[in-house]
């Protein structure tokens, strides 16, 4: 049966060439769309790893003031902490959660080197945005006296650098191979560019007490704290440090911005693709309607020879399935290059799921488009069909 169908298709390969190209192109579009969606969905379902509700990020800039920066930052820190509305406050680098900036370094352990995202933060960060630890403990400010800088890494970084061993207590080296950091704890997830970010290796480094560069304050306020308090806070700071700039960002707003940056392109892509596919489905329906109606004589003959309605429908569906299989195989040749050449740094599993989904959708569409005209045509009475010829 299948061999027969292949022969039927092969005999009319010229007429079917355009149809095959159309299904092939649709397959590629669907493959692209499915990859994009599955990539984002897989990232989304992994936990974020920290809390952002009622958390503000305040960037400080000393501008032209160069006198006693460290003392002023400490005074501001104490001032902010003193308010009853503030539950907890932490000082860190510019790359606060959901910020647009990021920082990364090469980190080595024995012979393994990897690029790791770096955040510089003090001892309060895990408490302020509630990052649970799974091994070891979060470093203390007092730990800075040791030979190495204490750090906390996430599980992804631990897996990359240490494979199956525990990281706690191990010494990490920088790009030049100089022993620099000591791991004091391991956290689970930290997706600092919001839910749609891939879970990447991360490292938190203890902020040195003499540091004058990293002065973003992450402030966890009590629920219901409003802009009146915020204005009071900013006023207080400008009286402590004249000429400094302050910019307060709510983490919920920053998170929304990160989401928009991911979702708007996906949404536009989705809308355009769905219109394209509707277009293709309608066109396919029209073409199949025409070509099946033209074969009434053949249908009549088969019916007269004892074929049931179901058998006739099955033949046409089989033909279009064989055609789609041709197209999908052609598409697959192109699609498998993505995981093989690792074009977009996406896990091979994502491509696999995307290929399966795209194939399934293609078969559903062609079946829907072919089913109505072929079942319509199979109902023709053989006497009428044969008489017309």
């Amino acid at each position: 049966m299948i061999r027969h169908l292949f022969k039927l298709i092969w005999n009319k390969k010229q007429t079917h060439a355009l149809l095959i190209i159309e299904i092939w192109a649709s397959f590629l579009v669907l493959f692209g769309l499915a990859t994009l969606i599955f990539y984002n969905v897989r990232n989304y379902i992994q936990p974020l790893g920290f809390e952002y509700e009622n958390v503000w990020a305040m960037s400080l800039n000393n501008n032209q003031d160069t006198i006693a920066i460290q003392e002023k930052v400490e005074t501001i820190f104490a001032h902010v902490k003193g308010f009853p509305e503030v539950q907890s406050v932490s000082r860190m680098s510019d790359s606060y959660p959901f910020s647009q900036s990021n920082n990364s370094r090469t980190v080595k352990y024995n012979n393994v080197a990897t690029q790791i995202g770096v955040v510089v933060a003090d001892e309060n960060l895990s408490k302020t945005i509630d990052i649970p630890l799974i091994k070891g403990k979060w470093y203390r400010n007092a730990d800075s006296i040791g030979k190495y800088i204490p750090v906390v890494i996430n599980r992804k970084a631990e897996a990359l650098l240490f494979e199956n061993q525990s990281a706690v207590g191990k010494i990490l080296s920088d790009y030049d191979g100089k022993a620099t950091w000591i791991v004091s704890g391991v956290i689970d997830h930290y997706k600092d560019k919001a839910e749609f970010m891939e879970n990447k290796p991360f490292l938190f480094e203890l902020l040195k007490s003499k540091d004058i560069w990293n002065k973003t304050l992450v402030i966890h306020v009590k629920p219901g704290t409003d802009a009146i308090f915020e204005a009071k806070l900013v006023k207080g700071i400008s009286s402590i440090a004249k000429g400094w700039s302050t910019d307060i960002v709510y983490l919920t707003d920053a998170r929304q911005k990160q989401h928009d940056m991911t979702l708007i392109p996906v949404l536009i892509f989705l809308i355009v693709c769905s219109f394209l596919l509707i277009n293709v489905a309608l066109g396919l329906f029209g073409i199949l309607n025409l070509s099946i109606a033209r074969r009434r004589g053949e249908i009549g003959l088969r019916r007269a020879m004892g074929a049931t309605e179901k058998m006739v429908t099955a033949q046409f569906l089989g033909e279009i399935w064989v055609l789609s299989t041709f197209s999908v195989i052609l598409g697959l040749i192109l699609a498998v290059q993505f995981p093989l050449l690792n074009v977009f740094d996406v896990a091979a599993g994502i491509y696999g799921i995307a290929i399966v989904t795209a194939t399934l959708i293609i078969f559903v569409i062609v079946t829907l488009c072919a089913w109505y005209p072929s079942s319509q045509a199979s109902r023709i009475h053989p006497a009428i069909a044969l008489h017309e010829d």
Partner: protein
Amino acid sequence: MLANYIKIAWKVLLRHPFYTFITLFGISLTLTVLMLLTSFLDHLIGAHYPETKRNRTLYIERIVMQDSARQSMMSNSMSFKFLTDYAKTVKAAERVTIFSYFNGSNAYVGSRKIKLNITFSDADFWRVSDFKFIEGKPYNEQNIANGDYVAVITDDFKKHYFANSDEPVIGKNVEIESINYKVIGVVKGSPITRPFTHADVYFPYTAPKSNYQNSGMVGNFIAMVLAKDPSELKAVQSEFQSNIAKIPLPGNQGGFKYNILEVRSDPYLINFLTAILHGGPGLRNIFYGVIGFVMLMVMGLPAINLVNLNVGRILERSSEIGVRKAFGAPVKTLMWQFIVENIFITFIGGGIALILTYILIQIINTSGWIAYADLTINFKVFLVSIVVCLVFGLLSGVLPALRMSKLSIIDALKS
């Protein structure tokens, strides 16, 4: 005769409303997507308010320093002093403005917080750009020399900040980061998609917190250089590059030793693409890949669909061709009929697309999705895409018809 052809075309369209619908859907959808896309690109890179002189403006956005082995790199905006020394001195230019990239800030009104973007600029900023002043005037060299605490605000910010936004606000104070500034002018704002001129509040660069005093080469300032004429852009560029070449190499910037120094002055489009084109082969491949894929999708698929459908449907016209030939119609006349038919349906599709695009653009412009969005229909693109549609229509509708009309009458009539 033409009226007759159109009448026939209309009847043919009505004979199979479903197929007509598919064809029109394909044509109008493709054109709509294409026009929306180009309208958005035009919004991003075309010369529009307030950067209406973009065709003769050069943008200086970053200084790139590298060591001799090109191992480490530092890329940043520049200091006010650097731009004054090397960009402001370009003699071939009509004007040069130095200003900062916009920066986030907050203002508090009662219990409300207003998020806003601020920019520091010199007085030439208002001459290089073409802002429309609804009230008041820009700050001038005198304000800057005096170090006045003045500000130019946008109409949008005025509406948010002042309780009674119908009254003029010139001379009133706005408090931003605990400093009071006097409002000197109100302008119609620039959308965020034009990052060079976008901001909510503009200050003279001598206002507090602008950091124009920074010595050294890097800072938070950028520049726009206006040439007298688009043909003089090359001359301005080469003069600026010769200024840059005077900087002694190798040098040291804040502890970073560099042997290679690059400061580009590019027209907007090239500056816009620099980040992509100079971002390494990976980024460039992704960029071209995405563009190719989108073109394949948006143009290729509907074209194949249209050709497919047309080729399939031409057979049902064979008896019509046969009958007309039997009554003595020459091939030329038959061809004209099919051509008119194709042009007719393409124009209907184009008309629908035009209306659809207009509606969508209105929705985008008024939705506030992008503040101050001013998307317009680009008729040049519309004409080109109509021509492309016609070519595909003619290839797929008329060529098979031509082949068929060359058949002998008997064969055509039989099928």
